[in-house]
């Protein structure tokens, strides 16, 4: 009896393992952000890189649109996209950009912004990268566009270029 039971357990175990592998194979493995869009940004609290000011999700409700941009001074494509961020805040008044400084040193980040311009209305630090991961970030640069109700409208993976900038323009019209 005991023997039979252990057989069933082992076979069950093996079968479930193999079928999970099989299901895993059928799944689309490429990263997509479909699930994120329409979702809401939930509680977070981050500290500024300049002083001890804090920012929370409540703060974002005051903006008509917010673009949460994840960047670092060591990230080459971030440099590339930076001028488009500057362009965005200069041309549109209904959007604010929250910068989240991913796994970076504060001083390097400050130098970066001094050099290239600061399009952010708030720059938050995320030294160990944990907060960014909670936002669903898997590499930088990435940006999340949200509205007043904190609903995610669009997620941009990789650097923002002219084409993506125009898309943002359309979305926040």
């Amino acid at each position: 009896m005991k023997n039979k039971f252990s057989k069933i357990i082992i076979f069950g175990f093996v079968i479930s393992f193999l079928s999970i592998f099989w299901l895993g194979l059928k799944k689309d493995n490429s990263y997509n952000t479909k699930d994120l869009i329409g979702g809401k940004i939930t509680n977070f609290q981050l500290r500024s890189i300049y002083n001890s000011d804090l920012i929370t999700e409540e703060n974002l409700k005051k903006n008509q649109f917010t673009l949460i941009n994840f960047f670092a001074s060591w990230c080459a494509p971030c440099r590339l996209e930076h001028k488009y961020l500057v362009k965005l805040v200069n041309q549109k008044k209904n959007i604010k950009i929250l910068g989240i400084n991913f796994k970076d040193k504060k001083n390097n980040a400050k130098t970066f912004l001094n050099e290239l311009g600061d399009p952010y209305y708030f720059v938050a630090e995320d030294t160990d990268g944990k907060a960014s991961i909670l936002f669903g970030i898997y590499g930088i640069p990435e940006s999340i566009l949200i509205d007043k109700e904190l609903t995610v409208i669009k997620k941009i993976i990789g650097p923002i270029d002219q084409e993506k900038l125009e898309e943002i323009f359309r979305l926040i019209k």
Partner: protein
Amino acid sequence: MLSNIGSILILSVLSLSLLIIYNSYLDLKNNNQLIKKSIYSLSLFQITFTILSFFTLIVGFIYSDFSIINVYENSHSEKPLFYKIAGSWGNHEGSLLLWINILVLFSYLFLIFNHKHNKKFRLYTLIFQNFLILGFIIFLLINSNPFSSIYPVPLDGLGLNPILQDPALAIHPPLLYIGFVGCSIYFSAAIASMLSEYSGKQFALAIKSWVQISWVFQTLGITVGSIWAYYELGWGGFWFWDPVENASLLPWFAISALMHSVMVLEKRNTLYEWVIILCLLTFILSVTGTFLVRSGILNSVHTFANDPSRGLYILLFLSLMVFTSLIIFFKKRKKEIYSFKSSSKETFILANNWFMVFFLATVLIGTIYPIFLDVITGAKVSVGPPFYNTVIIPLVIPFLLLMTFGPQSSWIKSKKKTLYKTFYILLGAFIINSTLFYFFGSFGFYSNLILITATFLILHSVIDAKKSIKNRKTFEYPRIISHLGFGMLVFFIGINHHHSIETDFNLKVGETKILYGYELFFENITIEPNKNYKSIIGDFKITDLKKNYTQYLNPEIRVYTNPETLTYEAAIKSKISSDLYLTMSNVTRSDFYNIKFQNKPFMIWIWISAFTIALGGFVQLILKKNEK
């Protein structure tokens, strides 16, 4: 032309496999004590044709025969000869052919070297090994044929992924494959043993050398892979708990457990059932690893080789293997009575096995948990170093202690006295450690314990070595060498982990940066054309301010033309005591370069330790040969 020759050779190997299975099956019923001559000849033809087919592929690569799709996709006429040759196994199709070569090679060697053993057992092993060969040849033919041709013939090839153009990587897959695919022979032998009821000590003797050979190659293969990651990937580490690294570690844990328990089976004629389980598990895990890596179900540095349709086939094959072995196992299992004295060597070896199984389970869970979660909830997660460190590190301490104590005990029952003596040494070590921790507390409690237990193992191994040289107990050498290597490995990883300096910053040509007692001066940038890439080389002058000692490091950015890719070559100055490690990457649209500077103590010793572990197994093989 070559493509036709290759395909014909593969088809001949396939038919020879069928013939071997058929003839062996007929011979099983024959009462003659010897295996029929014809089976030997068929096997000899099989191995010859297999090796020829691989040579055909290599020739295709050397002469850049782009009518073969595989050569077109993975080679280029301007590639250096060495990488043309290495390119033949640096891709999925070619490596599968190498895999088949090793399956056939082990099948042949097992047949001719084990002539003292039972005929039925040998024939069953041959039959099952050929079933494995058949399975992989069918996979090769229907899904991954390296000899598929293309028309019209392209003018030039696409080139080999530049990060694979590295000497360490040229030898890494063959080593690892001998290690992993070598396990197939005792998988077949385990099934044969159950069917032919050729068990116990005789079975242990039949598989022991094969276990050791594949263990040595697995250890070497994993080490070389790690060296490649350190020198080539430019991340400044040697182990990342990447799914693919884990996939190679899983069978290694199983085989290390097997290598120990096979000794118990040989000396004490017990643990037979467990040895069979480990034999089956080792190869099943090797194939599982291959599945995880090749199917693309997990994302990692090895994603160059994924394709879900391949995954499906490997999964099918894997399921077939698992169910066959489980069914035979449950049908043929016999109850064993275990009677171990608690302080005997067999108890300690069994304890080693528990630990190995625990490590195996941890790494297995960490590796496949993301797949489970993805399938069940759709969430994407990755399991990183914190998980492995938290779970594994505390257990390394008792593990190291057992490695020290275990060999001191003797078979069946040991004298209490010797055990007490070692226990006192340990108690002393523990007191020293606690005092050190209390006063300095610099490493954290666990790290301190690990360093002390590792030192304990090293010291004990050295004392043991002295004793066994004096008493001429050569049979103890392999164990002492491997255990010493393991102690050193843990010790140096511990030191390296705690004393590494790692920093990154941006720098322009002509600028100087001072950090951690080093002065870095970015002197110049030079551009050098090479055969198949262009290098951007940075000249850095690095001065150790404490010792007033200057050296030059030249990290490179390589711009490959075929295919067009950037790779970052780290500049590494290895010394006995530490490595200086510098990588440089370009920052787009600026004069700055991103510099990553690291000082890593005892890096070379980590490789030396890993090689020492493998050396133990190698020495054992040599000793065994001399015995005969």
